[in-house]
């Protein structure tokens, strides 16, 4: 148990970060039925902005800047790349998402020169080391799950008890009817991208505090895994995405702990395929099978 503990703690922390990304996928998928391939790259851009901002600005300016820049990026992506394709077939939308992902990665390569950007000034306090049950770990590892749960609770409140949340639920249920009922669908979709990007930015700040550097490909894997988490939990369902993310984060770290690091990524995809074949609606998904 003593040996496994650091992996369990890490796993919960990684799970929390995946959860924050997975919510962005699940919200967008719920409304647009689109796998937003660019979401992982938005996550990566947030990391890059954090590296640049924290090395140039004081912390109280840098962190809000990261959040605002990421939210703006998510908003612009939706307006430029997805909105013009609203009536196009779903495949065009997905190709557009892949194109955006490609574009962001290449732009990031141009700006960074292809060199992983080292996290030179990690955020103080949360990157301090603390002792838990005799194991040394960074404070951010303990903070992540707590912060994740708080943010998710806030989001669930937003969706269940506010007007925009009601509009989002309506749009997810039936796109056309929601429009007929006078819901301004573009505002609702923009809002989901804003929320998704905001949570991805928070996830990114937490994630890259634990890593030495941000590379342009850093977003791809966490992005795909978060998507798997969203599918695992039942796409469209927020609690599902969170539970799925924690399970995947835990399993992954335990596999690493058992010495099969090469397969920690493969496991996630194997899980995805098993879930899709056995229970396509996921753990908490709605009983609609026409998508699969």
């Amino acid at each position, binding site marked *: 148990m003593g040996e496994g503990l650091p992996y369990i703690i890490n796993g919960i922390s990684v799970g929390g970060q995946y959860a924050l990304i997975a919510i962005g996928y699940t919200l967008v998928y719920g409304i647009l039925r689109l796998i937003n391939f660019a979401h992982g790259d938005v996550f990566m851009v947030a990391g890059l902005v954090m590296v640049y901002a924290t090395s140039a600005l004081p912390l109280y300016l840098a962190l809000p800047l990261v959040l605002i820049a990421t939210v703006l990026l998510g908003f612009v992506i939706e307006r430029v790349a997805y909105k013009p394709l609203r009536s196009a077939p779903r495949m*065009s939308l997905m190709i557009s998402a892949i194109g955006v992902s490609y574009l962001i990665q290449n732009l990031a390569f141009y700006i960074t020169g292809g060199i992983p950007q080292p996290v030179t000034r990690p955020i103080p306090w949360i990157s301090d080391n603390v002792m838990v049950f005799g194991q040394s770990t960074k404070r951010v590892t303990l903070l992540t799950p707590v912060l994740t749960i708080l943010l998710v609770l806030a989001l669930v409140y937003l969706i269940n008890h506010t007007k925009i949340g009601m509009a989002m639920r309506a749009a997810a249920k039936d796109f056309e009817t929601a429009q007929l009922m006078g819901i301004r669908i573009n505002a609702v979709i923009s809002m989901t991208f804003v929320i998704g990007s905001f949570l991805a930015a928070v996830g990114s700040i937490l994630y890259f505090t634990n890593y030495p550097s941000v590379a342009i490909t850093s977003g791809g894997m966490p992005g795909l895994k978060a998507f798997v988490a969203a599918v695992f939990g039942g796409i469209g369902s927020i609690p599902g995405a969170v539970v799925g993310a924690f399970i995947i984060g835990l399993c992954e770290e335990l596999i690493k702990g058992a010495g099969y690091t090469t397969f920690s*990524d493969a496991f996630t995809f194997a899980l995805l395929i098993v879930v*899709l074949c056995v229970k396509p609606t996921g753990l908490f998904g709605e009983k609609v099978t026409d998508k699969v």
Partner: protein
Amino acid sequence: MTMKKKKSIFLVVVLAVLLAACLTVDALLPGYHIAVTVIKKATVYALVAVSMNLLNGFTGLFSLGQAGFMLLGAYAYGVLTIPVAKRASVYQYFDGGSIQFSLPESCAGILGDAVGPTVGMLAALLVGGVLAALMAYLIGLPVLRLKSDYLAIATLGFAEILRAFFQWNALGPITNGSNLLKSYPTFTHATPYVLLSGGMIAIIVLLINSTYGRAFKAIRDDEVAAEAMGINLARHKRLAFVISSFFAGIGGGMMAMYMGTIAAAPFKSAMTYEILLIVVIGGIGSITGSILASFLYIFSSEWLLRGLDSGTFLGISAPSLFKNGFRMAAFSVIIMAIVLFFRKGIMGDRELPDLLDRRGRKHKKEAAEK
């Protein structure tokens, strides 16, 4: 002369001119010249793009597993063709590896030194294709029941799993773990690539024009209607998936030939995305488009736009703007413009012979107006 006959003559003439051009390039330029490199790389990409188009454009199955099947083909080619004498140095961390024969050498022993090695290399390519097809059959059993985006993400996942397996140290005696495979024979000239890839694409074209091809298109256009017309959905989807993967495997083997060394790392999802975007640029559902787009893409990224990365472009010298990565950034902006505003790509769903049609239609239109 009938239109059909005209079209066939047009097609033959264009292909003959292209082949002649390629032979001239080979005769005049040395093997390391950039033109030869471009032709080699572009033909490989063309074959893979066409194989992806067969699945995504003609059958309507949105699969993102191409890189995984290419990986299989590439490794099969490398593993089977490394000369026995060089195995010890290539597999230095795995005691020379567990496979102690090389197809080109065995074939040379049987058929003589003149044709033997070439036959061996082709056989290795074929083995790669067959392996990819077998893997596709197995993967297809669970995955092909899924639709659109779920299929995409599941095939993407399988490609990643395959990559993990090839980097696994326990398989090292065969795959060399995460180390490079190298020193295997390759074709130095461009013509063999053109002939090989051209032959494969010709087979795909024949397939698309057969009853199977019509069934694929019917499935793409409307699954329910296709099923009602008596098309066995599961069987045809599986067939398309297996055939597409077979050619992706062969394309992977050719990719290995072109690159000279193989590692699992470059065969990740970014490669699939790149190929998908080539298919989109060319037009989803057009073989000619995919080939054209591959050549355009490789030609501009490898040669024409090189200057964008190294400081000078079109005589403008701006090292601070034209630095490493600008080329791909500019490229992706163009790709996004095509995705958003020219959704049909270069060719839409037309093929090379159809280019004659357009002129014909214009004439007819003018005649009708009179």
